């Protein structure tokens, strides 16, 4: 087996393929922000604690700061930039707007990505369940009541759609 210092990697982000030569120590978060200019995914703690960098890999919510980019070669990555359909916002984004579920907005992309997965997993059945399953996303402005409301509202719309 050959161990490489530079690895040819194809990142598939929001439906587009990006062939890149990467150092294996680079995180997915840094590649998205610094190489691809996709700065919607935020760097908060950079140590897996705050959830600001939450995105989807193969449909599941993960932390981009704890992911080495070379390890998601070929996998489908969805970031906050891939949620809206043209000018039409994703239902979770709409619900965040309607519920005023943010103050400074820094944690919001991670909250939205986490919330979309939380609903898809079936873990948004009640306020208590949402609080537990969204606990990996911290909000320094403490907009938690509005965030829970937004997730609940989006989950209801998802069910009735």
């Amino acid at each position, binding site marked *: *087996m050959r161990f490489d210092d530079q690895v040819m990697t194809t990142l598939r982000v929001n439906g587009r393929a990006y062939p890149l030569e990467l150092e294996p120590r680079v995180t997915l978060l840094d590649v998205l922000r610094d190489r691809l200019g996709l700065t919607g995914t935020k760097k908060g703690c950079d140590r*897996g604690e705050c959830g600001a960098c939450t995105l989807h890999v193969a449909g599941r919510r993960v932390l981009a700061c*704890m992911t080495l980019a070379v390890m998601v070669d070929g996998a489908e990555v969805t970031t906050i930039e891939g949620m809206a359909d043209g000018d039409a916002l994703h239902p979770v984004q709409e619900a965040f707007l309607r519920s005023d579920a943010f103050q400074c907005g820094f944690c919001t992309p991670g909250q939205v990505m986490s919330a979309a997965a939380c609903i898809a997993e079936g873990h948004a059945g009640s306020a208590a369940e949402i609080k537990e399953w969204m606990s990996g996303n911290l909000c320094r402005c403490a907009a938690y009541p509005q965030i829970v409301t937004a997730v609940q509202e989006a989950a209801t719309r998802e069910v009735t759609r």
Partner: protein
Amino acid sequence: MRPFGYARAPDLESALTALVEPGTEIIAGGTELVNWLKEGIAAPDRLLDITALPLDAVETTGDGLRLGGLARMSDVAGHPAVVRDYPVLAESLLSAASAQLRTMATIGGNLMQRTRCPYFRAETLLPCNQRDPGSGCAALHGDTSSHAIFGWTPECVATHPSDLTVALAALDAEVILRDAGGTRAVPMADFYRQPGAQRQRPTTVEPEELITAIRVPAAPSAHRSHYLKVRERVSYEFAVVSAAAVVELDGPTITGARLALGGVAHRPWRLPDAEAALVGVPISDATAVREAVARSFTSARPLPGNGFKVELAQRAAVRALRTAGGVA
């Protein structure tokens, strides 16, 4: 982060061959190792990505449960057989970390978490034998509120952070290790070394070995089990103390009990004296259950800052037992 070479192992044989070379570290979920790489606590020459290996199955067998080393925490926690027959296991997993981390983290990686305390990764470098063997222990002369009450040595007074291993210890699980020469099984309770013995090696895993699976023996009583985690906030926090209990009952009487504690030692801490004393005790008699649990605490050695854990851990054990037995 120091640079390193990277390879993705295409099959188990080539992974085991690559591991023989010193300086090679395994990465799977990455939720632990990537932090240590960033902080310089781990600095391998070569990083071996094992996520392509077919080791992620969760299987029920005639003699129990087999969890692949690469099964994700979220997948094991949601597996119907785990939820139905081993609630202590599902509860321990769901009380750990966050949804994002559980989606990433593997079962094998959960076991390989480092025994650590706040001094281990302090922003200002402080003496820590876990991080820098031989440098000393800052906690011993500092804040010991989150530290061990059992099994510690002057070398290290930290606790192991895993919830899962506490449940696995109470279930008498075994860790299946594989190297190029073959396979061996290590009981969960013996997996971590006493601090001070072979400082560089917190676990019994040899550098050329890989965790292929966890074997959980079948037990008809395992459905009567519970994991109780006491923490400083309701979610997404390490345990102050935790208790895993598996109870066998004949009517109202305890005929067998298995108990393990988390947050109290460098490894999941089984309570054999309490387990023996619990046999014959009526599960509804809280005082008698408490007296039996107390048998295991005569050997507790609290540190200056954590005397409260001795009481808290006993109460947690009693409640876990009674919840498992259906009376709390």
